[in-house]
């Protein structure tokens, strides 16, 4: 083998090594993060922690109201964003004539995705809480989070709709089925697994964000569980935030903070898992 060839092989090895290292670093970072949360948090986890409200200035008791609150807010956000996002994506991919207006809408959606979450929080405060007089409530929080994850859902839905083979649309239209029914009966059902995949990202984001709910929904402590969508709720990310920065006993509540984070991560993974199972089930049914 000549010297140049050897050098080329060495270069290739170095390059592959670098790529592998990058992948490993990523995995290690994620693994390390989860490990750290688990090690610090699992001691706090108990039946009481999961089912009781906080006691003694947050230093004892559990986080049940915050778990419930986060579930309400996340489900609410999805309920707002999924139909709206899918409808917007259907318009953009199936109906709108591709041109300047559609491009402008897409740029708008992408910009929305890049807006810092605290801006959504302020918008929610100004619009839902004050202007529409929903007050600081589950409704305001869910709407704010819904807008926050809208770009994710629109983007995922657009990709999923585009992935449905054009031949399905043609086959349906050629049978004298209207465009609307073709979308409803053929395109959407086949795009649904993809739409759900994208929505998983949105779910994680909605559950984990603090800034948007800070002004719109979250309470430091509620004596009662929420009775309607117009009530304030506790929420996991906000609970961690107040315990870690604003509580009276920051050091004593440290294990509770880690425990809360562990519950939050588990909750998000749990919701993801449900979405993945639904998706897997639908994929098995629809294959092309």
């Amino acid at each position: 083998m000549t010297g140049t060839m050897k050098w080329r092989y060495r270069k290739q090895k170095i390059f592959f090594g670098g790529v592998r290292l990058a992948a490993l670093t990523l995995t290690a970072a994620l693994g390390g993060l989860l490990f750290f949360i688990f090690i610090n948090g699992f001691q706090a986890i108990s039946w009481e922690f999961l089912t009781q409200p906080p006691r003694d200035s947050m230093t004892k008791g559990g986080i049940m109201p915050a778990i419930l609150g986060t579930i309400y807010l996340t489900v609410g956000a999805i309920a707002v964003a999924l139909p709206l996002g899918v409808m917007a994506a259907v318009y953009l991919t199936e109906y709108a004539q591709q041109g300047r207006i559609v491009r402008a809408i897409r740029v708008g959606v992408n910009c929305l995705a890049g807006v810092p979450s605290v801006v959504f929080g302020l918008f929610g405060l100004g619009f839902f809480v004050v202007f529409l007089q929903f007050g600081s409530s589950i409704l305001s929080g869910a709407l704010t989070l819904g807008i926050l994850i809208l770009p994710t859902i629109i983007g995922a839905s657009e990709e999923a709709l585009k992935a449905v083979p054009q031949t399905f649309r043609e086959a349906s239209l050629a049978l004298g089925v209207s465009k609307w029914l073709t979308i409803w009966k053929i395109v959407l059902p086949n795009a649904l697994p993809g739409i759900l995949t994208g929505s998983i990202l949105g779910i994680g984001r909605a559950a984990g964000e603090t800034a948007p709910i800070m002004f719109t929904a979250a309470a430091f402590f509620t004596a009662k569980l929420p009775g309607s969508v117009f009530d304030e709720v506790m929420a996991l990310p906000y609970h961690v935030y107040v315990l870690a920065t604003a509580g009276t006993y920051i050091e004593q509540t440290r294990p509770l903070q880690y425990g809360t984070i562990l519950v939050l991560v588990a909750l998000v993974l749990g919701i993801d898992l449900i979405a993945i199972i639904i998706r897997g089930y639908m994929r098995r049914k629809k294959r092309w």
Partner: protein
Amino acid sequence: MVTLARHDNGSTIIKTSGINFYYGSFQALTDITMDFDRHRVTALIGPSGCGKSTLLRLLNRMNDLIDGARVGGEVLFEGMNIYAPEVDPVEVRRRIGMVFQKPNPFPKSIFNNIVYGPRLAGVAAKADLEALAEQSLRQAVLWDEVKDILGRSAMTLSGGQQQRLCIARALAMKPDVLLMDEPTSALDPISTAKIEELIDELKKTYTIIIVTHNMQQAARVSDTTGFFYLGRLIEYNATEKIFTNPDVKQTEDYITGRFG
């Protein structure tokens, strides 16, 4: 263009007059005027890009789906211009069905593929749908192969079976005309032979217009053949005449393989 006098025993079902078709600024068809006879098989042949598929898709307004497409002239279906503003393309497509180049069954069961169109057109009774499915599958000579597996996904069928399923699906709408866009180009010779036999059987009930790249196929299945070149109808004649003694030199050159 040379057009032979039509056979007396067939009345015209579709008539195009002065069709010009543009994709953006590109003119894909120029001044196409031709009559299609009822209960006959008409083949459209010509080299790739000659406009034959474009014309086929014009006949049930499938070209509506293309951005920037423009149609000039008239397509008269039983005397009614299907491009008139008051005409609903959905209605046109119910009466003029289409089978595509690649089999395109829906990812549904065999049964649900067949009844998809009729169901959305308002046929609701289960017994009616079942009867329709059997009738359509029998017409497409697929019934004996699938009668015990109607609930199975259509995607599990072979390519040839899938294409016959697509034909059955189109027939379930009880159309008057069946447009076929190179229906056997993705199939093996045995499946192709089955489809060709089927076409022969179907023309008793339906009018069939078929685009094909395969000249032997055109010669085997059709009664009339139109030869297209560069967006123009060069010759439209009885199939036998086209393949034995065409009137136009260009047609002869093409069918003898001198170009194309």
